[in-house]
């Protein structure tokens, strides 16, 4: 059974990583472009067969632990280098390697202008990311998961800062109708963005690490199965603290309030990276972790409530910011934050399968959207400001149509994949609390609006920057084919989880059921809503209407009446400024953390290091120099003087023995 | 009673050895001249006495009665000391060479066929041999003459260099014999001569012996065509005779040592039945070695100085080390 060899899924990209990292520079981009995506494809095939193997097993046995070797064994502490293959992790493997493969292929075209050295490096990093992410999702204990967790953070840092030589990207201010200029915060340069992502992630990782420590002291093991098995006997307060700490990690990694700030700036990295890491896979690690730890979260209703609240507030919050962004990738970035909020809403209300479902469909359509945005950037020479685009649908039809499909899925247009997954979450939220549902629905409205705002501004209308427009061209096949494939997935991915009322089984929930079976039927509930059929139809219809309403509003504002948005901006100038400046959260953080941090560092460097420590050392050195200068007078340079001193010493020693 | 065996007997024995060597030196010069002449199809000395047999005596008289000339600006003491320093080591080595296997009794004293049998005999020989350099170095320096100094430096570096492979070769002999005493070494060759067990060692020793004694083809110290007469340039009369004597006695010593170390010393057929044969065998072997040396002098041209040194450091020394290692390994394997 290939599932026993699930480690191959990690080994293939690892081999590719080593190959590209060590030899890629010499062998040229042709080989690199085959090895990079090829190894990921092999990993995908491994995952596929592992999934088939799982299906062949009886439902209660669908969790295979493959122990490669004993990693750490200190005292009673055991951590195996062992992998857990169950429906949940295999689903993640398929998503990561599947989407990852398409993005790898896309990168061949996207990175074609880079020099050979950077080209090889890029694929090396991408493979490293795939490896790290697979370690994260396949780990069977919290320690190994933490390793993967940190590794993906490192990859994120490396890839955001891939173009670390580039400077800050200044943004044109928004000219309001009354002539006032609203300055748009500049995008950070890639190097700083990478640092920001890494440092903000560290805050979350710190919480995660504390959670792992607490698990260790509480349970005496880090193994998933053991921890979950022992969880019901533990005091609920402890479990709440553990889950909250773990959730802090998830907040950092999955860019939720208040640690979301790094994700928009992470767009400084190459677009495939944004698609793969900062939309489809890495940022969902938090969701995966919560789903993986569902046994703990199910025991901590307080935490679950916090998770759901954070999720829904983040969703709404990010959606509002996305309304006014002028940077195409940033619109998508905020939408990612928003959609991640949905996922947390889902796992918060206990609908883990729904969260995973949305994770999967989101991976499809958000990767698609980013790649399409990348295609546009590629065509326009890295221009990302939607205010300089326009009319691109004639120039790049394939990109346009795939973007449309992605946008529809994101907006929750009926029968697209996003529609089903989002609706399922909303239904679960409604079941939990209508307030959450209402907030989610509002977010859905905003989602439809900002998505199609970007679409209409970028692709419709007439060219705003004629020179740029003339320059534009459709991307090569190696880039558009992944788009088309992803578009297919985004469009039809919904069949993985058609709602029960349509008379079909919820395929994904059925698949995941063994992983969530310990929740006493809660996994099953993902299929059988506690809602009546009529209510469910109603919610479904309402969702459809909201989505269409959002899209319609966008059409009304940006196609039918292009002047309206500007009018609105003037009318609600303060709100507009607030949104453009992202609620001044970054400035707040600068004020609260960054500036004091810098001041402290300056103090340490100048006050402590330069003055105190160097003072002690310099003083000591000066003392020795002075003493040396004094003692040096004894060094006459005449050997006979030294010999005489020795001779007198001999006399003294002899005299001592004599007189003793 | 005690002092007879302690002082008188060794003194007499030493005297005998010295007299024998002096005579040997005198007639060795005669023999060499004769032999070389024969090799060159000449007659050699044939005027003084029958077959010129009194030639050495007349030579000696000539040397003794020559005027003593001490050049200006030499270092007097050292200048006069160095000829004696040259002869001395060659003579002193004979203190430990056993010339026969059998002791005999005379006037109630047991007379052993050697002056002394010290248990560090081989080391003693090496130590004394290393002193042979002094006479030459000092002679060269004290003469206050460039040729002399160059000749002396050449000689001494030649002797120091060739001492190394020689010593290492003798260590191989020592390994087989298991003793530093020369008597023991000879007795260890009762069955098989070490020349057969150590053919390479024997050849190395012989070559080094030639170089040590400054014999052709290694007679660089006295290359007339380059250095006039090397370290002996400023010497004449009896002092030159001493250098001459030193070289010839050195030759005899080298031969005697070769006999002792490699050719079985006094051993030969019937030596157990007739002990006095031991001395005869010993002398025959020494004579044979001397003949070899003269033969080589008559046959081989002189080697260039740098080649001489390269030959020693780059060939003989590694070879002797290899020989030593092989010997040691074989000994360990054989037991």
């Amino acid at each position, binding site marked *: 059974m290939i599932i026993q060899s699930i480690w191959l899924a990690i080994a293939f990209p690892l081999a590719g990583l080593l190959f590209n990292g060590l030899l890629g520079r010499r062998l040229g981009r042709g080989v690199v472009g085959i090895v990079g995506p090829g190894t990921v494809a092999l990993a995908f095939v491994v995952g596929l067969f592992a999934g088939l193997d799982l299906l062949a097993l009886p439902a209660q046995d669908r969790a295979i632990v493959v122990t490669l070797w004993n990693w750490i064994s200190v005292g009673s502490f055991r951590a195996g280098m062992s992998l857990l293959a169950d429906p949940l992790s295999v689903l993640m493997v398929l998503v990561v390697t599947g989407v990852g493969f398409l993005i790898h292929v896309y990168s061949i075209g996207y990175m074609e202008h880079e020099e050979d050295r950077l080209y090889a490096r890029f694929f090396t990093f991408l493979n490293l990311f795939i490896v790290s992410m697979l370690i994260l999702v396949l780990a069977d204990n919290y320690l190994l998961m933490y390793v993967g967790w940190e590794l993906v953070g490192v990859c994120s840092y490396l890839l955001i800062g891939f173009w670390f030589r580039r400077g800050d990207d200044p943004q044109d201010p928004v000219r309001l109708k009354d002539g006032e200029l609203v300055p748009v915060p500049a995008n950070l340069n890639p190097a700083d963005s990478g640092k920001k992502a890494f440092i903000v992630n560290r805050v979350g990782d710190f919480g995660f690490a504390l959670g792992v420590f607490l698990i260790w002291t509480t349970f005496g093991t880090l193994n998933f199965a053991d921890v979950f098995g022992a969880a019901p006997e533990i005091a609920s307060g402890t479990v709440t603290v553990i889950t909250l700490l773990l959730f802090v990690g998830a907040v950092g990694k999955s860019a939720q309030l208040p640690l979301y700030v790094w994700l928009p700036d992470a767009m400084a990295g190459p677009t495939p990276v944004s698609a793969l890491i900062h939309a489809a896979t890495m940022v969902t690690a938090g969701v995966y972790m919560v789903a993986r730890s569902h046994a703990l979260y199910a025991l901590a209703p307080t935490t679950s409530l916090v998770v759901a609240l954070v999720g829904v507030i983040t969703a709404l919050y990010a959606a509002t910011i996305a309304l006014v962004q002028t940077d195409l990738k940033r619109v998508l970035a905020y939408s990612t934050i928003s959609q991640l909020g949905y996922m947390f809403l889902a796992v918060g209300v206990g609908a883990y399968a729904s969260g995973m479902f949305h994770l999967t469909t989101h991976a499809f359509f958000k990767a698609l959207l980013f790649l399409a945005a990348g295609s546009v950037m590629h065509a326009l020479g890295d221009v990302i400001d939607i205010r300089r685009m326009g009319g691109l649908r004639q120039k790049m039809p394939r990109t346009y149509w795939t973007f449309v499909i992605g946008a529809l899925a994101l907006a929750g247009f009926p029968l697209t994949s996003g529609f089903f997954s989002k609706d399922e979450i909303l239904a679960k939220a409604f079941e939990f609390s209508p307030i959450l549902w209402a907030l989610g629905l509002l977010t859905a409205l905003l989602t439809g609006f900002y998505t199609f705002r970007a679409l209409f501004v970028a692709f419709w209308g007439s060219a705003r920057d004629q020179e740029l427009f003339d320059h534009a061209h459709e991307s090569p096949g190696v880039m558009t084919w992944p788009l088309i494939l992803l578009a297919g997935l985004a469009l039809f991915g919904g069949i993985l989880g058609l709602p029960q009322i349509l008379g079909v089984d919820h395929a994904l929930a059925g698949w995941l059921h063994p992983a969530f079976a310990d929740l006493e039927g809660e996994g099953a509930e993902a299929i059988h809503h506690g809602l009546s059929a009529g209510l469910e139809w109603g919610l479904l219809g309402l969702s459809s209407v909201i989505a269409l309403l959002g899209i319609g509003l966008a059409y009304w504002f940006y196609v039918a009446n292009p002047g309206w948005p500007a009018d609105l901006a003037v009318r609600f100038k303060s709100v507009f400024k607030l949104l453009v400046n992202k609620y001044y959260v970054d400035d707040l953080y600068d004020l609260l953390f960054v500036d004091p941090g810098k001041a402290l560092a300056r103090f340490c460097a100048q006050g402590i290091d330069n003055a105190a420590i160097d003072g002690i050392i310099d003083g000591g050195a000066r003392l020795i120099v002075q003493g040396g200068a004094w003692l040096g007078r004894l*060094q*006459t*340079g*005449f*050997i*006979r003087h030294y*010999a005489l001193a020795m*001779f007198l010493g001999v006399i003294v020693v002899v005299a001592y023995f004599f007189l003793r | 009673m005690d002092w007879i065996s302690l002082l008188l007997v060794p003194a007499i024995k030493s005297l005998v050895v010295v007299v024998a060597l002096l005579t040997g030196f005198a007639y060795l010069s005669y023999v060499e001249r004769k032999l070389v002449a024969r090799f060159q199809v000449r007659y050699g000395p044939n005027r003084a006495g029958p077959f010129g047999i009194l030639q050495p005596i007349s030579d000696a008289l000539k040397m003794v009665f020559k005027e003593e000339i001490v050049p200006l600006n030499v270092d007097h003491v050292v200048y006069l000391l160095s000829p004696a320093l040259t002869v001395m080591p060659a003579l002193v080595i004979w203190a430990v060479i056993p010339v026969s296997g059998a002791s005999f009794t005379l006037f109630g004293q047991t007379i052993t066929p050697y002056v002394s049998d010290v248990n560090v005999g081989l080391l003693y020989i090496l130590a004394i041999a290393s002193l042979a350099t002094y006479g030459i170095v000092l002679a060269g320096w004290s003469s206050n003459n460039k040729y002399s100094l160059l000749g002396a430096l050449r000689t001494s570096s030649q002797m120091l260099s060739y001492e190394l492979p020689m010593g290492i070769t003798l260590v191989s002999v020592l390994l087989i014999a298991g003793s530093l005493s020369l008597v023991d070494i000879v007795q260890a060759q009762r069955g098989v001569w070490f020349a057969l067990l150590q053919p390479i060692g024997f050849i190395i020793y012989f070559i080094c012996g030639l170089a040590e004694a400054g014999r052709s083809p290694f007679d660089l110290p006295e290359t007339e065509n380059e250095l006039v007469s090397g370290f002996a340039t400023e010497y004449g009369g009896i002092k030159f005779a001493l250098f001459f004597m030193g070289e010839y006695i050195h030759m005899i010593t080298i031969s005697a040592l070769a006999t002792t170390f490699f050719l079985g010393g006094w051993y030969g057929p019937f030596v157990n039945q007739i002990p006095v044969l031991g001395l005869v065998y010993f002398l025959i072997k020494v004579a044979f070695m001397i003949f070899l040396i003269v033969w080589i002098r008559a046959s081989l041209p002189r080697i260039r100085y740098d080649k001489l040194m390269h030959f020693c450091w780059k060939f003989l020394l590694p070879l002797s080390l290899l020989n030593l290692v092989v010997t040691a390994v074989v000994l360990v394997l054989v037991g």
Partner: protein
Amino acid sequence: MTAVPTSWFLLLSAILFVIGAGGVLLRRNVLIMLMSVEMMMNAVNLTFIALSRHLSSLTGQIFVFMVMAVAAVEVAVGLAILIELNRLRATTDVDDVSSLKG
């Protein structure tokens, strides 16, 4: 049993040592100084050998052996330095080599 008392050797050793030390202190020629150092070592060696006999122990002789090895190395390196010094400064006088001073 011992014909010559150990103390005689020790005294001789002391005398030789002091003479050697005097040579090091009084002479300015590096060569003579090195020779004097050798002489001092030899004086110490004599003490070792005398005490080795006195105490019936071979350790003294072994020690002398090691001292000889060190002395050989010292002379080799010392004279090499001396030659190099002579190349650089054309002198063997230690007082001409006093640039290493405080």
